[in-house]
């Protein structure tokens, strides 16, 4: 193919793509799967119970697609900051679509990273995004264990508990 033909083909493809996007946006609503309160409660209970089994008292938060709190759970004998911290970790994991710890690692040497100046963003490990395929529909955050990796393990247990329903 000549360069011109290629270019023309490219333009046609772009136009077709743009048309289909515009059509979809006008013609139908966005279909989404979201967390239910029941599922969120199961996840939080599992996370807190898992850490308890491991010997740690933790608090947990499950936030939804827009970072809204669906379940906030204060563990017995936890530090007063753990409820807030688990919420912020969860919000960070939701916003960043990755673990709050991975986010923290990625900006470790960059104190001026823009995200650090947003409300409810923290760099601490202990929260994981809740995903349906590639779609992040929420996050679960845990705080109270002696180490973010230990918090994160409990968050993972919470997600694993409902994994078969995340589709």
């Amino acid at each position, binding site marked *: 193919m000549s360069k011109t033909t290629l270019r023309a083909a490219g333009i046609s493809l772009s136009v077709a793509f743009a048309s289909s996007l515009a059509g979809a946006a006008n013609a139908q609503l966005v279909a989404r799967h979201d967390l*239910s309160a029941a599922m969120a*409660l199961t996840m939080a209970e599992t996370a807190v119970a898992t850490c308890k089994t491991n010997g740690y008292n933790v608090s947990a938060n499950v936030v939804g697609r827009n970072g809204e709190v*669906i*379940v*906030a759970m*204060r*563990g*017995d004998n936890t530090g007063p900051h753990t*409820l807030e911290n688990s919420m912020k970790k969860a919000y960070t994991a939701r916003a960043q679509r990755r673990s709050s710890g991975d986010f923290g690692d990625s900006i470790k040497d960059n104190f001026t990273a823009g995200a650090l100046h947003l409300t409810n963003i923290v760099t601490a490990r202990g929260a994981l995004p809740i995903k349906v395929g590639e779609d992040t529909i929420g996050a679960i955050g845990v705080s109270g264990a002696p180490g973010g990796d230990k918090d994160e393990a409990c968050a993972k247990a919470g997600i694993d508990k409902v994994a078969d329903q995340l589709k």
Partner: protein
Amino acid sequence: MSKTALRIAGISIASALVCGVAGSANAQLLTHKDMSLAMATTIARATIDACKAQGYNVSVHVLGREGQVVLAVRNESAGLATFENSMKKAYTARTFSRSSGEFAEGVKGNPNAGALFLTNITPAQGALPIKIGNETIGAVGVSGAPGGEKDEACAKAGIEKVAADLK
């Protein structure tokens, strides 16, 4: 007895009383029982289920002795404001040690009631204090049913579920 003798006797009694109080305050910590997360979870689940059985979707907050959130559950099928409202109702019931509906009755016709200007106080029915005898150790607040009395009935069902353990 002479006036002087009476006065001396009075001073002795007063001294003994002061020492007794001071001694007691120095010698031991306050002892009280608090709600566990497990109990709060049972209350919240029973509350949500009671309303669900009647066809109402409600959000629920269970607060502890200091008004702190022990468990918060946002119902995906309830109105947006219900999450906040259930917390404020619960806070109101906790702080006044009576139902938020009774508080509302108490301030009816008095828009200048001081309590109405405090943070998180709301004159809306739908929350009950959680008590051990006459001691308030927390509260459960409900929002989402069509009428505060219906919210309150579900809160009552939640507390009744753990009534045997409230001692």
